[in-house]
């Protein structure tokens, strides 16, 4: 049964749940684990179809990750689901030794990433998981932008061998892809071309970056290029550098601390290979807060307007420091 693309706003975690259930259909070695959040993470869809391959461990996240290690070491392909805060925070050491160090084919489906989960507040709003998982050797970090890409990311994860951390979100999120994309590809998609500035987003910030680009064009006549980074690590630097080479200035946007997140990943590549001003939209040295998901996003400036405003600030710097790419043909 071919998967159905969603056109109305849908949570990315639903894409995970649907794809996981479909994976169960096509692959006998897929098993799923959850820590008493199966409805929230949507792993329940798998659990209902394949009860004999579904293990709800209760509120015991550490145990879940180490169990997945044992299952994978014995030939299964485990998908572990819980909230991002517990997947990356509570069980970091278990993920580190049992999964990443062992290079095991375990997939962590971390839902409710970022502040957009809303009312539960700071204790649940995981804003440093991308940093933690980027720092972990051998771990691939995936953050899909909408339901359709989340479905593809999950389906495609079965085809890959390395350990993977996949971050999904709670709220219904507008679509960025009209259909379920064929592939994640390099993990960096150019969604909109432009010559003046690169807006580089991940997850829930990608559709906002597209909106920001519209408003920059309408209000300032600025042609912004929009990149969706769905694989934050390893970051496909060629696509990023190509865009930076063209525009000479960028804004990154993520629902995460700017420390260790997408901003740092892009700045690292740029600093070494094509230094240009890169401004960041994301959380500073602060924890989350209670409110509706949308209110929380606004509180931290994680909006289309927030991105557009940062872009305007960044563009001021562009004429001062802009110069040809370090390694480009123009340099000689």
């Amino acid at each position, binding site marked *: 049964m071919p998967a159905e693309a969603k056109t109305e706003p849908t949570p990315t975690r639903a894409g995970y749940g649907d794809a996981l259930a479909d994976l169960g259909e096509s692959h006998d070695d897929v*098993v799923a684990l959850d820590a008493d959040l199966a409805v929230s993470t949507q792993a329940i869809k798998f659990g209902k179809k394949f009860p*004999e*391959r579904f*293990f709800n*461990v*209760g509120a*015991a996240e*550490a*145990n*879940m*990750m*180490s*169990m*997945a*290690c*044992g*299952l*994978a*070491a*014995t*030939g*299964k392909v*485990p998908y572990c689901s819980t909230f991002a805060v517990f997947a990356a925070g509570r069980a970091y*050491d*278990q993920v580190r*030794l*049992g999964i990443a*160090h*062992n*290079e095991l084919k375990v997939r962590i489906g971390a839902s409710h990433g970022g502040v957009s989960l809303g009312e539960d507040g700071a204790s649940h709003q995981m804003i440093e998981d991308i940093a933690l998982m980027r720092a972990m050797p051998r771990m691939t970090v995936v953050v899909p932008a909408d339901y359709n890409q989340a479905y593809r990311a999950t389906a495609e994860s079965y085809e890959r061998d390395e350990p993977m951390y996949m971050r999904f979100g709670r709220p219904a999120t507008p679509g960025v892809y009209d259909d379920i994309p064929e592939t994640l590809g390099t993990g960096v998609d150019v969604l909109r071309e432009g010559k003046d500035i690169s807006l580089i987003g991940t997850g829930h910030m990608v559709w906002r970056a597209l909106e920001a680009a519209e408003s920059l064009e309408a209000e300032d006549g600025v042609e912004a290029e929009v990149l969706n980074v769905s694989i934050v690590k390893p970051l496909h630097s060629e696509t990023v550098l190509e865009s930076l080479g063209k525009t000479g200035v960028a804004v990154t946007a993520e629902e995460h601390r700017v420390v260790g997140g997408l901003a740092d990943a892009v700045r690292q590549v740029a600093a070494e290979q094509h230094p240009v001003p890169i401004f960041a939209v994301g959380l500073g040295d602060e924890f989350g807060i209670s409110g509706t998901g949308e209110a929380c996003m606004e509180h931290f400036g994680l909006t289309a307007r927030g991105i557009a405003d940062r872009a305007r600030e960044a563009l001021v710097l562009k004429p001062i420091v802009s110069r040809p790419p370090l390694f480009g043909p123009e340099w000689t």
Partner: protein
Amino acid sequence: MRHLTPVPDPKPPPKLAEREEAKPRIAELERWATVLRIDCVRMLAVAKSGHLDSSLSAADIVAALYYRVLRHDPENPEWPARDRFVLCKGHAAPIQYAALAQHGYFPLEELMGLRQIGAQLQGHPDMRRTPGIEVSTGSLGQGLSMCVGIGLALRLDGLAETAHVFGVLSDGDCQEGQTWEAATAAVHFGVPNITAIVDYNHLQTDGTTEEVMDIRDVRAKFEAFGWDAVEIDGHDMGQVVEALERSRTLRKPAAIVAQTKKGKGVSAMEGRFGFHGKAAVSPEFAADALEELMATLEEQTKALHEEGGGES
């Protein structure tokens, strides 16, 4: 230092088929435990770091497993229906390395590379570097959960009737909350093929377990979690073998709390605090320890010869 070079045991381990046909006798196993202890002292004397006392404490359990109870085949280490051994207390890696090397999973000479840069044997078991290691360990508390996962995977593959999972835990493992998450899960999921052996030596890094964080009646705890739970003398080979073999017939999670002595076999270390993780194995210490263990080995070998055949 010629006495530190490992030598192949003149009485090599029986092959899988031989073990199945005629189970090694208790006296033979006791002797092999000494062989492993000797390897540990040699390894640590060369490595100049590592956990000798922790390794010696588990020597009888590990010998009983590798030389008799475990269904494993060094010539076919990836055999899907093999039993799985998980050293949850990964810091005792030397004792497992000795057993693996003696069984031919890798050359004996590798033992001398323990903890050295570029060598195969890491400070803690590493499944990606060392043949015969099922999962990497070294972070206390994770091992039993790994065993539960392995047990479930074997059951999904229809192998649970024959393939058993044996995990060796320490006092510290039992202090970690995760062990009790795993104990809960093993019973909840009805894992039929798991045995947890607790090497209860009452010593840990900072002192006696009673002083640091008393874990009290571990057998009663496992029983309260729904496990079959027995307590034995972890240095009485007869009791060790009986408990291990009984556990695999139960078809439910089984705990064996083995009362042990840290440093067992080397009297200067036995049951004494102050050795854990210390580079205690000076050349003099190693020489004394080896002398004592060699004497034990000689005695055990002689007794075996005099005894001749005998029942298993």
